[in-house]
């Protein structure tokens, strides 16, 4: 490991529009933000709901507000800082949605804060996984809903009832957060039990550790490529990070 890498462990993130969005001419409604303040790591990933006409604005506002607020609260426990990020994102949606309705900018949101440990605040689907010594585990699963197209949103009246907070296990050396367009690629359901798929994350974390200069572009092409798009025409966002 070189000294630069020690100072800044690698991170990588990309959002791509799904085929259905391209067909309908709607923009990519996912958004993410990633910051590395003072040896910590803050990630926010949002997925604008297809049923909300301007959800791309909501997703973009949510991730910006969430990361800023989480950084402001880095003196707290990481899960608390993540929750503050989520609360700030809700306030941002209220501002963005004021002219129309907040439901018009509805989105999901995951906020991941890694400082002395990993803390997560999460509403809706998508998931956060952690890596430890080359093995992968689900840290925050998608919210439970019987039907695949129904999801809790940060814009709902009862949004706070659906917020989930999680704390990572000790020894986590990397995290990944992704939107529901990647559920099929990343998560396995074995007898109702959800697990992170080693066969997906193993190669990606190896890629991250040895990332080429155009890694971000390669990740975008992978997400839009045939292997991943075959079973999902939804927008896809993936953020990968090794922990400080």
């Amino acid at each position: 490991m070189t000294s630069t890498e020690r100072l800044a462990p690698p991170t990588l993130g990309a959002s791509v529009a799904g085929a259905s969005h391209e067909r309908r001419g709607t923009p990519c409604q996912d958004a993410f933000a990633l910051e590395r303040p003072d040896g910590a790591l803050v990630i926010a990933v949002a997925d604008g709901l297809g049923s909300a006409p301007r959800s791309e604005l909501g997703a973009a506002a949510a991730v910006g507000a969430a990361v800023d607020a989480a950084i402001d609260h880095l003196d707290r426990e990481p899960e608390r800082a993540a929750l503050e990020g989520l609360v700030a994102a809700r306030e941002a949606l209220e501002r963005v949605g004021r002219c129309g309705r907040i439901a018009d900018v509805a989105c999901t949101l995951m906020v991941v804060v890694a400082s002395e440990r990993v803390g997560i605040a999460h509403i809706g689907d998508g998931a956060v996984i952690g890596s430890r010594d080359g093995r992968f585990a689900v840290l925050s699963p998608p919210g439970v809903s019987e039907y695949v197209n129904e999801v809790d949103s940060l814009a709902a009246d009862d949004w706070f009832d659906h917020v989930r907070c999680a704390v990572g296990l000790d020894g986590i050396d990397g995290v990944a957060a992704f939107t529901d367009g990647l559920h099929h690629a990343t998560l396995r359901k074995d007898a109702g039990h959800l697990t992170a798929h080693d066969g997906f994350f193993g190669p990606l974390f190896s890629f991250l550790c040895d990332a080429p200069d155009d890694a971000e572009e390669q990740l975008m092409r992978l997400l839009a490529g045939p292997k991943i798009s075959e079973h999902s025409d939804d927008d896809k966002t993936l953020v990968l990070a090794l922990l400080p």
Partner: protein
Amino acid sequence: MTLDALEQQIEIANPQHPHCATVLALDTSGSMHGDKIRQVNEGLTAFREDVLTDELARKRVEAAVVTFGSHVDLAHPFSSMEAFAPPAFRADGSTPMGDAILKSIDAIRARKAMYRQSGTDYYRPWIFLITDGEPTDMHPGDKLWDQVVAEVHGGEAAREFCFFGVGVDPANMDILRRICPPERPPVQLRPGRFRAMFEWLSRSQRHISASRVGERLALPPATGPDGWAEITTG
């Protein structure tokens, strides 16, 4: 590492599409004889063809058919649209609608259990009932009636399925309204608009199979000047 190598190396965890299941509960009693049953048969073919034109929906939509006439029959078990080939139905017999509704609900429950067991994601299933009469196997207040109404209203309220009732003239709309869930009253088919109704059904299924909702899903309009349905009040 090159992109191609990376794409080759990753494994997809769960390479299957979520499924979207509909039971068509069709009245094949004697009164459907002639033009009506012919239009139902043609409508089923058009429904299949229309879903197949949609690249995503064709991998996600599944349908089954329950008929009620001379007897109640799971005339076509759940299948993909590619394998959907219901026989041409003939109309005869009475209208055992109560048993047909229970059979449709059973089919939905069995399908969901199969999805859960195989780890397949799914959308909220539909029961789409078409009748031109009134049930002959149950009457308001008898045991089967109470059971059917409780199952339909309870299943809709618990979001187990969506129940749609369509009356074809001269259906008893008052009875149909008492069977259908209060949150989704039945509609009456405009004369001869079977084809438009099946087009709406396939359009709705295509819409759902590409949807993601926070609150409510907006379906294509069924009523209105170009629609196939009329809302009757009573």
